[in-house]
């Protein structure tokens, strides 16, 4: 093990000149290397341990685990499909609602807001991120869900009910309510990070557009957004990551029914919610293995999305950074 560490260190560490007979430098670089390397070890251990505990379920159900929708702890039959569906759909719905609003906030704060308004307004938006998710859940259950069930959902159902996703009875609590709360929760992340990257748009670029007779919106479109795109994509992915893993508020609002319905007003279930709801009553055996496999799936979904985002950022961003001259 040590020799492996030493070997890797030789490969990765910045070649430093040996300080005149002093131990400080190698000790320091060794320590920071270990600190960084410990992350990789932790990650690998976690995946290994999860896979190990989940093994009975993986053996029993195989790939069918992902595509089966039956979840019955009594009969010991487990399928993850409704949870995967609920997790992904609630997060995507949240993104659809949060991204346009966040970009609007970010554009206003970074380009148009008068200076005296920028920090207070930005601070309030960031405060949204500081509210504990259980508080969001409580507010969602007592205020938001009844409100949606009384107003927005019947309205959509009456006027757009011919589209299956808006059809069916409205309950208030359900996939849609969970998505709305998720959207509010990820709003500060997306708007704060996109605002920063928009704020970094060089003044010369804006002046170039303005001198050509661009209106304020056109200036944002051609001189601010292209260079801020990598930052915006990163912000959206961070928001998505938060939405995928959010547990408390979703559990309180999504309805906790492992079913896949066409309607977004119907109750649903998410991976994080079922884990939170069932881990306390599980003893051992297949039920436990199935819950841990769900955790593993959530981890893989998140990792894949982050990877995808990284690729996207590199593809659109590297050109901007290489050629942008700044």
């Amino acid at each position: 093990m040590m020799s492996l560490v030493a070997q890797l260190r030789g490969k990765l560490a910045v070649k430093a000149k040996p300080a005149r007979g002093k131990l400080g430098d190698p000790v320091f670089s060794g320590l920071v290397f270990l600190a960084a390397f410990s992350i990789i070890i932790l990650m690998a251990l976690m995946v290994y341990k999860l896979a190990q505990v989940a093994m009975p379920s993986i053996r029993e159900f195989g790939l069918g685990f992902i595509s089966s929708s039956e979840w019955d702890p009594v009969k010991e039959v487990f399928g993850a499909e409704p949870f995967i569906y609920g997790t992904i759909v609630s997060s995507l719905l949240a993104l659809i609602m949060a991204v346009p609003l966040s970009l609007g906030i970010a554009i206003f704060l970074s380009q148009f807001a008068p200076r005296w308004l920028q920090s207070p307004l930005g601070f309030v938006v960031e405060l949204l991120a500081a509210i504990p998710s259980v508080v969001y859940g409580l507010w969602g259950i007592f205020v938001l869900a009844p409100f949606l069930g009384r107003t927005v959902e019947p309205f959509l159902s009456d006027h757009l009910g011919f589209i299956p996703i808006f059809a069916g009875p409205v309950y208030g609590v359900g996939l849609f309510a969970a998505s709305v709360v998720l959207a509010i929760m990820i709003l500060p992340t997306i708007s704060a990070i996109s605002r920063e990257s928009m704020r970094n748009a060089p003044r010369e670029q804006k002046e170039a557009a303005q001198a050509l007779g661009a209106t304020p919106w056109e200036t944002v479109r051609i001189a601010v957004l292209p260079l801020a795109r990598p930052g915006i994509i990163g912000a959206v992915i961070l928001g998505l990551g938060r939405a995928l893993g959010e547990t408390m508020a979703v559990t309180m609002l999504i309805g906790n029914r492992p079913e896949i319905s066409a309607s977004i007003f119907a109750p649903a279930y998410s991976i994080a919610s079922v884990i939170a709801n069932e881990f306390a009553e599980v003893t051992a055996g297949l039920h436990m293995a199935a819950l841990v496999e769900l955790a593993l799936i959530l981890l893989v979904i998140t990792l894949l999305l982050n990877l995808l985002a990284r690729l996207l950022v590199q593809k659109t961003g590297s050109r901007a950074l290489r050629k942008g001259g700044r």
Partner: protein
Amino acid sequence: MAGSITTNNLSASFGDIRAVEGISIEIPANKVTALIGPSGCGKSTFLRCLNRMHELVPGAHASGEVIWDGKNIYAPEMDATAVRRGIGMVFQKPNPFPLMSVADNVSAGLRLAGVRKNKAAMEEIIERSLRMAALWDEVKNKLGKPGGSLSGGQQQRLCIARALAVEPDVILMDEPCSALDPASTQKIEDTIEELKSDYTIVIVTHNMQQAARVSDFTGFLLTRESGEPGRLVEHGTTSKIFTMPDRKETENYITGRFG
């Protein structure tokens, strides 16, 4: 025939700080007018007042008149974006849109103005603008490459082509060569010489040789004491300003005694 510009008692400030004050100058059509003066004398600020770019800086304000083509550009009914389309600008630091292709950079202003043209007509405008900016031969095979991939001198000529494509009346140049090497500077000076048959050009420069080489008229701006706003000390034909200026300050500056 391009238009002329006349300023009457033009003053500009940033917040409470006056940058230039009381400038009245006539900028004749189809000539090159150079503005010279030591750093901080307000010549760039004055230039940016001529196409209403100055007011885009938060807290900035301009007063007085700028008569272009018989109309005061600061009159309430004037549209600032239309003014900027008619009075183009080239900046000190080359600022093409780095991710846009060379061709799209040139046509950006037209597309912003909502000009709809077929592909062939657009390509013709792009080629003509790039030729006028003496850049066509160097980029004709890489029109699809991003604007940011060109060299600094090419980028600046791309910016000139971009300004020309919207067919402005006047072109303002704010120290266009200060970030460039001598060879690129030479090319841009040649371009300026070519352009004046179609355009009125105002160029701010730090480089007195450049002013002497390219301009027909020269204005000299000066801040008498630090903290004071810049004022126009003298203006006239370039040959007069550089050989027998009326004012002592001008002569001192021209002969390199300060600044």
